[in-house]
């Protein structure tokens, strides 16, 4: 849902032009002209800032390179673009004013302040002044935050301080946008107008530099003002903001809603009808806290968060064949490792450390490591014993053995997964609304260049002598095994095969013959002799079969050994000698960096040849004042329970994406760090707040609120959770059809490491939007949260859904076998689907419906159909 909120943010341009502070007869290229290109939208990515420019005129994207822009202005098109003799004839002016056809339309009027400024600049020779003197030191937006009543307007004033010490009011050269136009709009001159209740971030951009401010608009008119008591500090913050906004929080949700909510949110499951009954009958005042504790240590909770972390860490992107990785082998191992750490509840900083500083060998001898790899390969068998083995490893080397996990792309993934930062744009250019430049990303990437998998290279055996020994050993073993197999197949095997063939013919002949003789009453002795012959034949056949199986086993091993060898030599994640500097190549050119620097820090760090540079990253992350690490996970966990991040989207912790409740976020982070990064503390604290436990029905007057937690935000169930809920509701299950890959029979959808062969399950996962866990996509938004016609149609009319409803062992069938009366049966369907008791009205309606149905069974099936098609079922609420 947060996506929609983002869309509500829009740029406001145009409007009237405020007084230009400086004398416009001597405009500065760097302070005024380039700023205008940004303000007027000329250098946007879909206009002249595009890689190839537009219609032959190119500017650097968002004005990142004003010097080059100046060169292009002067050089391109001879003197037509800038005509010094007749400035008014300059293409820049006649196009910009729309006097000749211009793809971008008219950007300013002839005689407007913009027009005059550009004309004066051209007339005075279109000189680029000294860029160093005009470097921006600070950009100050006033007021930094403001409380405005609906209908009220106020101006923003933006002051720039430059390197030469001068300060200038640059308001007329800025562009403005409101992140939530239903709360406040902002016009082209920087005048903010409050239009609706809430608070909105306002973004100001001067040249390529953004700055942010906020406006808070209280609700006008009467509010219900339900009197509530805060349960913990979360509520204090939330209620304080609501009070400022003159909004009322919602009532507490009822017990049944609460139980369904926590079961789905904590464990990804519907509570069973019996659990609902017990909970409703439980009179203990602490029962909510108690069930939260219980669910937080339930296996299903670890499954759910293993799923979430596997999404985040792209835990299915294996398949470098040359290095012997595959999704089938390795995705379940990575999942098992993550799940094991969550079950142990290791501190989150340690969790991150054990992933980020993972090596394959973990300081052990090559031999020990080789034994581990052999056991892992051998464990790829029924029941997957390798999963337990792998999950006992200290570190998750598989994180670094995924595709695209190293270098610049790897650094981007680390930033996204652990720091909540999106650095994708910085691969090519500075993000228009963020700080990150290419060098920030490259410098950070240099911390990840040296420890990674070896990869396939011709001289590996020379470079990595320790591993080469084992590479050779396993390959040699494979070769000799193959020779052995060949010999067996051609020697003993062939002989046995032939003997078995003869024996088979004999046995085929003897078996009916004996039967015939027995019927006709032939002498017992003769029969006994024939029997002996038959036994002998069968024994030959059995011997051959045993031999064949033995050879087939050897065959399998012979094929496995070279894979083990490859994985040992090429797939090992280790500290590599040397290391190449981080480099990016894009349509905008190639860039390289040799320094290593942490994100947001100004000073580079020095790396030593024999230590893991990634340790520096972890040490930096776990510092209490790290601006991203704790915030990213706190904000993500919050978003999981509340439907949106305190900073939203939750993976965009940009300074220019302001938090809705900054103090709350800070206090949560402090508490989380003080708890020694205890994830369970974090879950528990959020879950026990009344903010989380309030009703999804807003109080009167608070209906429009989306960002201040005036009520619980309903949201669609995740694909996996939904399918599991559908199975529970209908009393059925899905066979994943993955026996070939050694999956257990009874795997839940939340537990699947990648889309299984069962066509219905895959279809559900695709339809309801399961992330592909692919390193190419770095966005939490990959898990779709919207609703579409497909979602409705699938539940309403997919033949498999009907099969489930009508299943001969399903819920309705079971109910029909019971002695319950119809009302109790309906009650059970309610508990199994929407996890509450039906109201009197609903009981009456269902009763009438059953009475009018052909049979009670059919009637119940249709009631069940109705219930799984309610919004109450599809939504978390």
């Amino acid at each position, binding site marked *: *849902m947060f996506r*929609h909120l*983002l*869309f*509500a*943010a*829009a*740029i406001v*341009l145009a409007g009237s032009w405020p007084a230009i502070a400086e004398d416009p007869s001597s405009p500065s290229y760097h302070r005024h002209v380039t700023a205008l290109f940004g303000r007027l*939208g000329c250098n*946007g*990515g*879909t*206009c002249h800032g595009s890689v*190839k420019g*537009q*219609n032959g005129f190119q500017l650097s994207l968002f004005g990142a390179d004003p010097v080059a822009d100046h060169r292009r202005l002067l050089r391109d098109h001879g003197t037509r673009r800038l005509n010094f003799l007749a400035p008014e004839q300059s293409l820049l002016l006649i196009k910009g004013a729309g006097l000749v056809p211009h793809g971008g*339309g008219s950007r300013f009027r002839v005689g407007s302040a913009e027009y005059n400024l550009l004309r004066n600049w051209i007339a005075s020779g279109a000189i680029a002044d000294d860029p160093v003197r005009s470097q921006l030191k600070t950009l100050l937006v006033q007021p930094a935050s403001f409380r405005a009543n609906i209908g009220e307007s106020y101006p923003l004033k933006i002051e720039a301080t430059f390197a030469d010490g001068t300060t200038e009011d640059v308001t007329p050269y800025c562009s403005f*946008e409101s992140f939530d136009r239903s709360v406040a709009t902002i016009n082209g001159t920087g005048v903010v107008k409050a239009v609706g209740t809430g608070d909105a971030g306002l973004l100001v*951009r001067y040249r390529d530099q953004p700055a942010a401010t906020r406006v808070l608009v209280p609700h006008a008119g009467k509010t219900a003002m339900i009197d509530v008591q805060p349960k913990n500090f979360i509520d204090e913050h939330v209620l304080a903001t609501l009070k400022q906004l003159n909004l009322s929080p919602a009532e507490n949700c009822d017990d049944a809603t609460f139980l369904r909510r926590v079961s789905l949110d904590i464990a990804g499951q519907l509570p069973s009808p019996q659990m609902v009954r017990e909970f409703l009958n439980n009179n203990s005042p602490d029962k909510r806290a108690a069930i939260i504790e219980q669910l937080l240590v339930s296996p299903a909770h670890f499954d759910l968060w293993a799923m979430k972390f596997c999404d985040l860490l792209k835990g299915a992107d294996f398949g470098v064949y040359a290095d012997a990785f595959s999704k089938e082998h390795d995705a379940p191992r990575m999942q098992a490792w993550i799940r094991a750490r969550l079950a142990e509840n290791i501190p989150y900083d340690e969790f991150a450390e054990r992933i980020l500083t993972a090596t394959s060998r973990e300081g052990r001898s090559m031999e020990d490591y080789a034994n581990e790899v052999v056991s892992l390969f051998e464990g790829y068998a029924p029941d997957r014993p390798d999963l337990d083995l792998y999950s006992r490893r200290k570190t998750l080397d598989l994180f670094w053995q995924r595709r695209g996990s190293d270098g610049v792309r790897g650094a981007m993934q680390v930033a996204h997964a652990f720091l909540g930062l999106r650095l*994708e744009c910085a691969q090519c250019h500075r993000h228009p609304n963020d700080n990150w430049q290419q060098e920030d990303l490259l410098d950070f990437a240099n911390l990840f260049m040296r420890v990674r998998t070896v990869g396939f290279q011709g001289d590996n055996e020379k470079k990595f002598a320790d591993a080469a020994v084992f590479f050779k050993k396993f390959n040699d073993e494979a070769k000799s095994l193959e020779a052995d197999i060949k010999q067996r197949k051609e020697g003993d095997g062939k002989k046995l095969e032939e003997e078995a063939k003869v024996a088979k013919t004999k046995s085929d002949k003897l078996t009916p013959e004996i039967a015939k003789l027995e019927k006709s009453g032939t002498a017992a002795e003769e029969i006994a002799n024939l029997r002996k012959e038959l036994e002998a034949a069968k024994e030959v056949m059995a011997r051959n079969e045993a031999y064949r199986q033995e050879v087939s086993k050897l065959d399998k091993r012979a094929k496995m050994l070279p894979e083990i060898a490859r994985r040992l030599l090429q797939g090992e994640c280790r500290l590599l000698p040397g290391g190449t500097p981080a480099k990016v190549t894009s349509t905008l050119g190639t860039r390289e960096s040799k320094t290593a620097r942490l994100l947001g820090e100004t000073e580079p760090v020095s790396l030593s040849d024999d230590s893991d540079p990634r340790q520096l990253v972890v040490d930096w992350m776990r510092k209490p004042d790290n601006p991203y690490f704790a915030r990213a996970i706190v904000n993500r966990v919050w978003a999981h329970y509340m439907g949106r991040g305190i900073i939203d989207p939750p993976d965009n912790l940009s300074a220019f994406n302001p938090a809705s409740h900054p103090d709350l976020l800070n206090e949560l982070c402090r508490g989380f760090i003080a708890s020694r990064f205890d994830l369970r503390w974090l879950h528990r604290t959020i879950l026990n707040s009344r903010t989380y436990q309030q009703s999804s*029905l*807003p109080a009167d007057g608070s*209906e*429009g609120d989306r960002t201040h937690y005036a009520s619980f935000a*309903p*949201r*669609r169930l995740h694909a996996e959770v939904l399918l599991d809920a559908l199975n529970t509701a209908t009393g059925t299950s899905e066979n994943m059809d993955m026996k070939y890959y050694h999956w257990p029979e009874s795997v839940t959808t939340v537990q699947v490491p990648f889309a299984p062969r069962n066509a219905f399950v895959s279809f559900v996962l695709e339809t309801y939007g399961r992330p*592909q866990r692919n390193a*190419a996509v*770095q966005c939490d*938004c990959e898990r*779709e949260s*919207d*609703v*579409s*016609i497909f*979602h*409705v*149609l699938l539940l*309403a*009319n*997919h*033949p498999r859904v*009907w099969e489930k409803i009508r299943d001969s062992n399903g819920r309705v069938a079971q109910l029909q076998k019971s002695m319950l009366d119809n009302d109790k049966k309906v009650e059970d369907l309610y508990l199994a689907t*929407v996890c509450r008791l039906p109201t009197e*009205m*609903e009981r009456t*309606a*269902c009763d009438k*419906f059953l009475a*009018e149905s052909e049979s009670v069974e059919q009637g119940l099936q*249709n009631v069940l159909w*109705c219930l799984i*098609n*309610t*919004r*109450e079922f599809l*939504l978390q*609420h």
Partner: protein
Amino acid sequence: MKRRDFLRIGGMGMCGVGTLDLIRAHAATGIAPRAKQMIVCWLGGGPPHLDMFDMKPETSEDYRGIFQPIDTRVPGLQVGELLPEMAKRADKYTVIRSVTTMNKPGDHAQAPLYWLTGNPRLTTGSDEFPMYGSVVNKLRPGPGDLPTFVVLDEIDVHTHNSLSRSFLGSAHSPFVMQPLKDKDAVTKMLTPQLELPAFARNADLLKLLDNRLRKDDSQDELITGLDQHQQTAFNLLRSPKLRQALDLSKESPESIARFTRNKPAKARYPIGDPLHFLLARRLIEAGVPIVHFNLGYWDWHGENFVAGKQQIPMFDAGLAALLDDLDERGLLDSTIVLALGEMGRKPKIDKPHETNAGRDHWDYAQFVIAAGGGFNRGCIVGGTDKLGEQVVDKFYKVESFGRTLYHLLGIDPDTVIPTPANRPVKLIAEEAPIIKEAIL
């Protein structure tokens, strides 16, 4: 356009999109469409241009192959002898010989994605450009009781349906169905699983029971959206339109035979089903805006001429019958009909004198058949060199082709859409002129 939609298309404050884009977004659905509907017959794998619509009879045998050129109703246009029906109808369509991927990106993994979206893209990644039908579904959806974008069989023989995902979100993915298969779950999902009176009873009960979370519907987008989608879904199920369109028993045996008469009994490669031409026509008649289907497999590295004899006549009969039917019903002028693959095939034949003679990949020249919906009738655009290897006249990039389609569909290809990560992206990222020679 509702205000909210307007904002969603244009309002990407986060990434610095200017008023220009707002203006463009406004214009996005403002152009009067010449084409209301479109059928894409996708010849996945790359059909041989030298054996079909770009004959080179003057070349040596190891180039021109064994098929003779025949004259068509359009002076100057010859086609392969296996296309007699299309020859008779050459005054109904345009042959474009000058759009190619130039092998950037080439091969079966990427070229189909390029052709079918108008942008180079991969199956996953940050810039998942949408198929034309997905864009129509977002910006100009069809009647409320029909799907807007239907794919029959699958999108492409090599990449299957991986292209259905796009940055528009799964709500705009095509309905991929295989109605010719009895057990197809998606077809069934679109056909009520209950008799209509029973379905109506259920819907009534659902209305009574689904009364929670309803304090003020208009305030919650999620809940309003869900209600609307349920309404649409139920209308779709209640409406006989789709079911009737997919029901070929309504078609006379003679009519069916026109499409299937050249279907080979046994074939060298998977040939697809010519009934998809007929289904496409019936869906268009019913009012479905965009229908796409993959017709078999055209990657003939070996036995090019064996496969040609089997598959080309089938294609010829099917496409000709489709054009006839649409024209007779007065639908051709408002319906684009395309037949193309992701590449051509190599003019120089591999092992020319053997039965196994094949044509390898060729990404530098190919043909596109485009009819109706504003495309010219009886027209040839562009041309290749003597050997059919390189485009020498009126070269256009695939972006131009995509922009031409959007132009005819009345959608501005410069419409800016925010990706889920809120990056503003144009429907067709790169500037390119439309193929003006091909359109009316």
